[in-house]
């Protein structure tokens, strides 16, 4: 039916832990920590100060930079501190700490009721922008920027693949809030004027496929059952499988006329446009073999991981790793103090049994990574060259910068080599070199201008 992408892997999905747990509202904890960097782009600057009273949905952080998404108070209460706090992506980040007053009052005028069908596209886009919506699958790209592509697009793809093992947040959302997803999708159809709209779901979630087919009944939205294979939900793979188009190297989806949004993002867009609600909560899966009662929670942004874990009965066993996101691309956390953010699709606690593996050995050139790589790279060579600090060779001869860090190569490696780590090292080096070169070029230009100005003056 749909052609597949090359490579990919079939890890044990671990979704049985939480897939049958209906979405539960988690009570708002006493203290919420809202980081100012929750999106790709410039971090926000707080617009409140310690001691201020805030209401839910009130703007608390913004930025003058183009690439950013506004941040809103997730609960009513008092700002007690503004200070750097542990952050699941950056290590540490400035955060607004809000003491919950227990009233949970919305800011003035919220929620409102609007009919999106009579709204202008500019109004819709403004509503999405002022709600601070970002890509909620984990990439956290500001939605209002992605939804104003600079090139014509004709296909909208909804990402319901949820190919990361263990995570079930999108699955539950599709089962329970199909209508909301469809509303959000129709808003995007109007906004983008696309010819075709497809929701892609892996075929290991037949109930979700059924639920979305029912919800989409009577609309022109297609539901596509995709082969279960990681990383089916990676943007480029999804576009390739659904439309047959291949995003060019270094390019963006809009280069092939496509826009991809996660189903969670679309549901948040429906709330923002219809009810004016900023993004202050999301669905997050708290799961893993170390969690007593895995759950799918509707959780406020800023909830510390520890509070969510406690709500799920705590640990049955001390986990070895606490992961923000899924096990393939999520980031391991040192502490459970980090808060839930807009891109937090899961909180995963895994015991040593799940994450331990043998020591790293030499590459034996078995070629499993080459077969597994969906991007057509040679991960084994990248890892060996990076290990030898031949970073330029990684970039020039082995397409380093095309790596999407999906982790397939490292998953299949029988030598247990940390290939993604080697690749990240090499990328980091190349980026640092680029920055250095850019800075040097600018300095040279300035110096030249200065000498010329001097010469001018001397004349």
């Amino acid at each position, binding site marked *: 039916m749909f052609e597949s*992408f*090359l490579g990919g*892997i079939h*890890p044990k999905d671990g979704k049985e832990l939480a897939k049958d747990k209906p979405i539960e509202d988690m009570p708002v904890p006493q203290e919420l920590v809202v980081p100012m960097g929750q999106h790709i782009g410039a971090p926000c600057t707080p617009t409140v100060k310690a001691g201020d009273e805030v209401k839910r949905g009130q703007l608390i952080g913004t930025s003058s930079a183009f690439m950013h998404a506004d941040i809103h108070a997730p609960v009513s209460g008092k700002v007690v501190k503004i200070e750097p706090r542990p952050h699941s992506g950056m290590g540490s980040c400035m955060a607004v700490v809000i003491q919950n007053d227990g009233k949970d009052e919305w800011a003035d005028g919220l929620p409102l009721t609007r009919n999106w069908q009579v709204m202008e596209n500019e109004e819709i886009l403004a509503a999405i922008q002022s709600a601070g919506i970002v890509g909620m699958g984990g990439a956290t790209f500001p939605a209002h920027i992605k939804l104003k592509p600079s090139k014509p697009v004709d296909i909208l793809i909804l990402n319901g693949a949820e190919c990361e093992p263990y995570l079930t947040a999108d699955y539950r959302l599709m089962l329970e809030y199909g209508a909301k997803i469809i509303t959000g999708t129709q808003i995007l159809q109007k906004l983008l004027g696309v010819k075709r709209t497809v929701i892609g779901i892996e075929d290991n979630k037949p109930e979700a496929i059924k639920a979305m087919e029912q919800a989409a009944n009577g609309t022109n939205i297609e539901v596509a059952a995709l082969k279960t294979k990681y990383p089916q939900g990676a943007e*480029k793979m999804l576009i*390739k499988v659904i*439309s047959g*188009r*291949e*995003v*060019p*190297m*270094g*390019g963006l989806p809009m*280069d*092939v006329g496509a826009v991809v949004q996660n189903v969670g993002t679309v549901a948040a867009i429906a709330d923002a446009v219809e009810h004016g609600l900023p993004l202050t909560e999301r669905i997050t899966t708290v799961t893993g073999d170390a969690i007593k009662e895995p759950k799918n929670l509707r959780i406020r942004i800023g909830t510390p991981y520890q509070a969510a874990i406690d709500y799920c009965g705590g640990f049955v066993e001390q*986990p*070895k*790793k*606490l*992961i923000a996101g899924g*096990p*393939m691309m*999520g*980031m*391991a*956390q*040192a*502490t*459970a103090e980090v808060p839930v953010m807009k891109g937090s699709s899961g909180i995963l606690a895994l015991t040593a049994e*799940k*994450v331990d593996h*043998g020591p790293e*050995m*030499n590459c*034996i*050139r*078995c*070629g499993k990574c*080459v077969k597994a790589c*969906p*991007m*057509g*790279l*040679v991960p*084994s*060579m990248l890892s060996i060259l990076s290990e030898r600090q031949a970073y330029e060779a990684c970039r020039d001869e*082995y*397409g380093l910068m*095309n790596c999407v*860090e999906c*982790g397939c190569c*490292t*998953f*299949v*490696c*029988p*030598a247990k080599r*940390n290939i993604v*780590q080697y690749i990240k090292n090499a990328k980091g080096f190349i980026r640092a070199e680029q920055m250095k070169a850019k800075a040097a070029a600018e300095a040279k230009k300035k110096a030249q201008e200065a000498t010329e100005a001097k010469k001018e003056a001397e004349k």
Partner: protein
Amino acid sequence: MSEEAVKQETASSLFTVSVSPHIRDDETISHIMWQVNAALLPAALFAIWWFGIPAFINMLVGVVFAVLGEYLWQKGMHQPITAFDGSACITGLLLAMSMSPLLPPYMVAVGSLLAIIVAKQSMGGLGFNIFNPAHIGRAALMVSWPVAMTTWTKMADVSGGVDAMTSATPLNILKMQGYDALIATFGSQSDLYWNLFIGTRNGSLGETSTLLLLLGGLYLIWKGYVSWQVPVTMIATVALLTWIFGPAGLFTGDPVFHVMAGGLMLGAFFMATDMVTIPMTIKGQLIFAVGAGALTVLIRLVGGYPEGVCYSLLLMNAVTPLIDRFCKPRIFGAGGAKS
């Protein structure tokens, strides 16, 4: 709480941090290597039945010296010990299986040590060896003790009417006396084929039974350790070329004989598929297999040796890095937007 206690509590509540992915497949190098050993077992057991105790002793000596050599080297060089991961065992076993059962065991021991120390460990150990260690061991013995290496056992008289009192391998007979003499030795063409298929013929210790090598090879393909394209392409190349360049002019050859004779089955399924020394992409592997097959035929039909599998594979090992360089997969999105 004292400061020390607070520090301790914080430390114990910290989780391990490392780069993703956090879960791994269960497959290990050691598991792959032991699976390959297991796939060689039927042919090895057959060799003991067919050639007797000397075959058993040679294989035992090959394995013991390979593993021991690797262990002592790693111990002496203060490296992590990986001597028991099964790869040294394969080297020793393959080496013994690719030589005459009459070879004195001390020569097998020397070959095993050369294979492990020179061809494998001095290159940096498993993964960094350019050449298949077993083949280096065999080639070294070939130039050191050429007579011993080409003295073959007398064929036992198990198939009834066969006049088996010759001490040459089928490929030897072909080279020295011609095709008709070969048929005469076995009685008829169908007898020749049958003996080659079952393995009741003269030859290197583990190379004789086409049937059992095929069985082991199919197991590896089924388990996914070997891409079927490699052995199939190498064997097909040999069949095609030996058929075309027959003894009585073009298209008069006997491909069935050439495919089952000598070490082709052992080489195609167990040596041309040695992941360390062959290209990593399918495209590269196909080039490797065609090259190995063509060189084998060249040596068999034109060269001085009756058999060419060992040298052809060594030659192709040498160009493997070059093949890898030119046979990279196509990067997703290369060549601009595609729709």
